[in-house]
Structures are given as structure tokens and as C-alpha cells.
């Protein structure tokens, strides 16, 4: 376009501003994460796969009963960090970890920690739903059975409560003895969530829980996540940034094993402090 009409006139002088505008005040912004009680506290956490370092001195406080999303390009360390929170990386040969992870104040890498008990406190849902080849009922109470719980009334109550919480009860209440393998993909994923919360964990870890689901099943899981935050601390790894904006209160952006920025989701997606974050969320790299 011809911009001469715009540029041919001298500009007005630039008086000193006497008043400053207000920083973008985002409605309903949750408080600074440092002011909240942490469910999980990560301090100077580094992790190596053999010689290759995957996490570098990560420090963060994951707030209680909030949804925290981990975002970042593939290989940035977000899933690795998630697996550190229930010591799932222990199962990988050659993994070495330094730093601390505290859940409700307890160092989960400290001596004397019962890892099985820890994993009951930190329920996990994976990318691909993984129901056991058992009935719907037995899937839900799997963790309780391992715990030695056999009282029928306790198990029945746990099944109903967990399936209700996972938004699945109305769909399966009349066929609890049927195989879980007959459920649809979205139902299977909700069953896995029911199984994860049956043991009443403190933290629910979700590693791309919707990436294998269609949009309708995804919407149901997202609605469920927003309900679960009333009771649980939820940490979700997602490649879908719009999912992070829809479901999370806080977002952490990782890049090359470093935590680049962590703050309220609205801020991360509207006015991030770091250029690297802005470049990533606007699709300029990654």
C-alpha cells in the first residue's frame, strides 16, 4: 500500500507521559504460585539418562488442588519430570537423579520411602488408555486389592465413587462385570482415571491423556479434569496448547530440559515474560 500519506507529515512531539497505563489486568488470574501451598515441591532437580542430561536444576512449586500444565516441544523434559513425581523413572536403567521432590512435604527420594505406597498417592493416567483385561469393576479396585482391601462394601463404595468422579457411572453401572476391553477409547481413558483416583491419591499425573481421543471424548476428559481439581492436584503434560488454556490454572514451559517460565496459564498465553515462551506458544519454534 502507499504509505506516503502517513509518513509525509512531521510527527508530533513526544511529551513526557504523566500517567502510566495499567498492566494487562487479567480477570480471574490465580494468585502467584509462590503464595500457595504446594502439593509438590521440586528443588534443584536434575536427571540424566546415562551420560545425557534431560533435566537441569528444575525448581517449582506445584500448587495444591489446581491444574498445572507442562508444555514444551518434544524432548524438552516435561514427561521426564512428570515421571519423577511418582518415581517411574526408577524403572529405566541408567537413570540418575539429583535434587529433591517433596509431596506434601515428604521427600519421595528419601530413604525408607515405599515406592508402591508413593504411586498410590500419585495416580497416573497415560497417553494411551491401558485398562487391564478384567472387568470394569476389577479395574477400578485394582489398587485397593493390592492394598489388601477385600471388604465388599468398601470396594463397592470405591467403584461407585470413582466411576461417578470419572463421569462414567451412568454409562457402565449396569455392566460392571463386563470386560473393560469392550468400552470405547474415551470410556477406557475415563476408566483409567477412575482407577487412578480409587486409591484417593494426593496428586493425579496425566501424560497427554487426550492425544488418542476424538474431540468429543477429549471434551469429556477436559470437563472431568476441571471437576477433579476440586479434590485433587492435577498435573497434565500436553502438546495441545489450547487444551492447556482450557483446563489448567498454571502452566510451565520447558525447553531443552530447563524450566523456562512458570505462571498463571492466562499470563503464559497472553503476556509471557520470556521471549522463548512467546515464540513457542505463538508457533515460532518447536
Amino acid at each position: 500500500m502507499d504509505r506516503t500519506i502517513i509518513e509525509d507529515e512531521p510527527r508530533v512531539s513526544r511529551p513526557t507521559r504523566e500517567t502510566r497505563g495499567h498492566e494487562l489486568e487479567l480477570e480471574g488470574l490465580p494468585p502467584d504460585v509462590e503464595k500457595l501451598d504446594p502439593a509438590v515441591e521440586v528443588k534443584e532437580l536434575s536427571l540424566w539418562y546415562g551420560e545425557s542430561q534431560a533435566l537441569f536444576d528444575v525448581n517449582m512449586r506445584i500448587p495444591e488442588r489446581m491444574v498445572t500444565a507442562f508444555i514444551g516441544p518434544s524432548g524438552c523434559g516435561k514427561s521426564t519430570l512428570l515421571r519423577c513425581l511418582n518415581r517411574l523413572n526408577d524403572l529405566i536403567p541408567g537413570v540418575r537423579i539429583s535434587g529433591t521432590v517433596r509431596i506434601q512435604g515428604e521427600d519421595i527420594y528419601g530413604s525408607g520411602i515405599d515406592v508402591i505406597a508413593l504411586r498410590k498417592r500419585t495416580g497416573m493416567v497415560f497417553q494411551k488408555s491401558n485398562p487391564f483385561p478384567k472387568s470394569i469393576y476389577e479395574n477400578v479396585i485394582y489398587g485397593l486389592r493390592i492394598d489388601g482391601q477385600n471388604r465388599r462394601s468398601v470396594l463397592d463404595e470405591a467403584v461407585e465413587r470413582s466411576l461417578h468422579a470419572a463421569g462414567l457411572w451412568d454409562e457402565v453401572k449396569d455392566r460392571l462385570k463386563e470386560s473393560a476391553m469392550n468400552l470405547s477409547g474415551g470410556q477406557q481413558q475415563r476408566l483409567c482415571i477412575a482407577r487412578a483416583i480409587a486409591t484417593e491419591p494426593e496428586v493425579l499425573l496425566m501424560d497427554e491423556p487426550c492425544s488418542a481421543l476424538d474431540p468429543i471424548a477429549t471434551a469429556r476428559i477436559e470437563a472431568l479434569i476441571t471437576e477433579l481439581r476440586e479434590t485433587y492436584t492435577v498435573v497434565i503434560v500436553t502438546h495441545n496448547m489450547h487444551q492447556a488454556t482450557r483446563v489448567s490454572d498454571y502452566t510451565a514451559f520447558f525447553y531443552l530440559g530447563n524450566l523456562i517460565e512458570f505462571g498463571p496459564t492466562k499470563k503464559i498465553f497472553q503476556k509471557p515474560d520470556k521471549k522463548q515462551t512467546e515464540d513457542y506458544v505463538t508457533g515460532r519454534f518447536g
Partner: protein
Amino acid sequence: MERYYEAQFKELLDLLLRLSYLSIENYSRALQGIFSRDPELCEQVVEADEQIDEMEVRIDQACIDILLMRQPVAKDLRFVTMSMKINTNLERMGDQAVYIARLGCDLSDLPPLKNFFGLPMLGEKAKTAVRTAIDSLVDEDTELARSIAARDPEINRLHRDIIRRILHYMAEEPSKITQAVDLIFLAKAMERVADYGKNIAYEVVYMVDAVDDRHRSTG
């Protein structure tokens, strides 16, 4: 890394600049038409407004396309919301140009007044506010954008002063009241154009710095 859809954002900016060119030019033509008592020029302003209206619709559609296809966040999101608001302000500037041109047609049928009571100066200042706001958009220059709001009180004072002078004239020359009333409407239209410049400048500040200056400045 340049995104494969970067051209879509550039095209939106280009459309906005084209609309700004059309609106500013039509407003200039309206001023020239009314002050030179040229009804033909005023008619041209009315006809040219159709192009401005079409451009407004096109820009809105371009914004909706980006929102739909790119789901922008951060500065991209602010750029699109800013574009929608600047679009509205520029189109309204076009409407004021038409209003001024119609006043020009009416006034050219009436006996001339002895002077225009400082209205040409007000008209130019309003135009400068919009031009400067567009400059600040092109350069993403928030300091320049903020200078527009800082100058708004000066325009408001000039507007009030002109109204006072016209009212005084009306008392002195009751036979020219019809023309004088038109000039009061003209002054108001110009003052509104200056406000559009200020609105555009606020949007530029928001887009660049994510700071909302509205209702805070001295203007």
C-alpha cells in the same frame, strides 16, 4: 523461524494500512470540500465511502479467519483484537468524512460566512492524531502512540473555544444561525475524529506492551 502462515498476519496489517489510507484521504477531501465550498468534491467523498465500508467487512473477515484457523495467543491474539477495534475506528472516521461532506453540500447552498472560527486547524489536528496513531502502529512505537492521548486535551480545548466563538457569532448575526449550527456539528465531527486517533493509539499500546491505557491518561 517464520511461520508458514505469517503472510496471513502481514496481509491483515496491509489491509488495515490500506483502510487507514482511504479513511484519512476521504476525510482530507471532505475538509477541502467544505472549506472551499466545493459540492462536487463533497459528492466524491460520499461515493468513496462505499470502498471504506467494503474494506471494513474484508478486514473483519480476515480477523475471523485468523481466529478460526490459527487460534492466536499472546501478541498474535492482541494483534487480531487490536485490528478489529482499529478497523471500527477507521470506518467511523470514514462516516464522519461523509457527514462533513454532507454539511459541505448544505453550506455551499447558503451565503458564505466571514470565517471558519479556527475549524481548519481543528480539522488538521484531528487528522494528525489519526495519522500519528497509524505511524505508531507501523513502527510499533508506543511512545509515539502515547503522545496522542497526551495531546488530546489540547484538541478538546480548541473545540470548546471554537464552539464559544460560534455561539458568540450567532448572537451577533441571527441571520446566519443556520450556517453557524452546521459549523457546531462540524466541530463535533472533527473532535470525534481526534478521539478515533486516540482510540487507535490505545490499541497500539495494548498490542505492543499488553498495557491498557484507556481511562487512565490525562486525555
